[in-house]
């Protein structure tokens, strides 16, 4: 079921608008016009995941080499730094099988709806 969570302009740049939907805390992100909704609970230790940062990360590489990528696609937990793919909620690069819960988001007439 779709829930209207606010006007597009209410979502700060790169910081989550945190809303309660059916008593579930959900963070809605606007990253350069791409919208994401993520459950505000880290599957590791129940941290408020959506108060983390939207970043890129270091891609798997050879020893001694650094390659930065996935810019703006990674949600990094404010506690233990676990990194999740904003698109899928998966923990990046197989460090854990646990995943962040994500929800479909839709914008109609600048109103933001989350399917939850």
């Amino acid at each position: 079921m779709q829930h209207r969570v606010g006007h597009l302009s209410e979502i700060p740049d790169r910081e989550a608008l945190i809303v309660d939907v059916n008593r579930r805390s959900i963070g809605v992100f606007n990253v350069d016009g791409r919208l994401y909704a993520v459950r505000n609970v880290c599957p590791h230790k129940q941290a408020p995941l959506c108060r983390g940062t939207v970043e890129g990360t270091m891609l798997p590489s050879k020893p001694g080499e650094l390659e930065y990528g996935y810019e703006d696609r990674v949600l990094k937990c404010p506690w233990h730094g676990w990194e999740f793919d904003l698109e899928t909620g998966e923990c990046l690069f197989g460090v854990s099988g646990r995943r962040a819960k994500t929800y479909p988001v839709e914008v109609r007439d600048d109103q933001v709806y989350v399917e939850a």
Partner: protein
Amino acid sequence: MTITVEVTSKVAAPSRTKIIDSDVHPWINGDIKGLMPYLSTAWQRRFEGSKSTLPDHPLRPPLAGATSIRRDTKPPGGGAGGSDPEFMLEDHLDRYDIEYAVLSSIQAGKLATLPNTDEAITLARAFNDYFMNEWLTVDSRYRLAMCVAAHDPLAAAEEIRRIGNEEGVVAVFIPLLNTLMGNRHYYPIYRAAEEHGLPVLIHPTGTEGGFQTSVAFAGGIPSTYIERHTVFPEIAMASITSMVFEGVFVRFPGLKVVAAEFGYSWVPHMLWRMDQNWREFRREVPWIEREPSSYVLDHVRFTSQPAEEPEKDEYLLQILEMVHADRTMVFSTDYPHWDTDSPKSTFRRVPEQMRWRIFYDNAAELYGLATPARV
């Protein structure tokens, strides 16, 4: 905006447990600049300019801002996470219904980097006055692990005698120098702590392996944060072993030690290896008249955070049994640091009796905070 932290685990919530949090870290904005009101004019002059900043280890956590402090703990009024005692009450103690929080300053831990003894003594005293004035007066749930500069153990003992009887002071934090804790260098500190019924507390200072005066890691210098964080336990392992065999607990039978944030899955190995070696080499340390492990169980306490994450959940319970957690473990969160354990998601499968011991009774006995509700 409201934040609702929910517990997703399917396990039924355990019955309500009272909580003492044995590892909470207050922060002073501006480092020594924030301590200026607690320093004499001469010492204020001494710490001018860039000398007012305590040094950081160059290997920083690969987290947002390369800081150990959780970004979600930033007080709304500004300043670093952990710097506002009122906000910490709301954000941590009230939220989790924590009865007491034992404060230790990791900024004070950086005293271990100072090559100058008088500077270290002076700052230790200023840190203590700051926390007594700015934190303990805010709420009686705050209790302080006062800090001492191990550079001069006689001055450290004097500092314990100055404030060790204050009601809010419950432990003595020793930022370790590169000398094992069994060394008699530390004995004046142990004597004073024992006299005042205060446990001594050790905690990674975050300076290990980064400064000549700080604790050196075994074998060499780690080159990444992930390495240095992984090997913190060796510091506690080496110092506890040293204390036992040097006979510290024979010399100071009332002394208690808190090993905060060093983990504990290594403890069974240490206990067994000590006992095994004692059966073989007792004559080298003839003052050790009973199994060395028994001194550890009687005198040393380990904090629960970071709760270890073994391959199988049942291993955790087995490890807790092996370390006699019903006697030796005290719950801690490490708020506001990145490797926080939440009271709501920690040790949920631990049997209730052991939970009570870990979350409250062991700490209440250790710090003399209250008569344990259930024994």
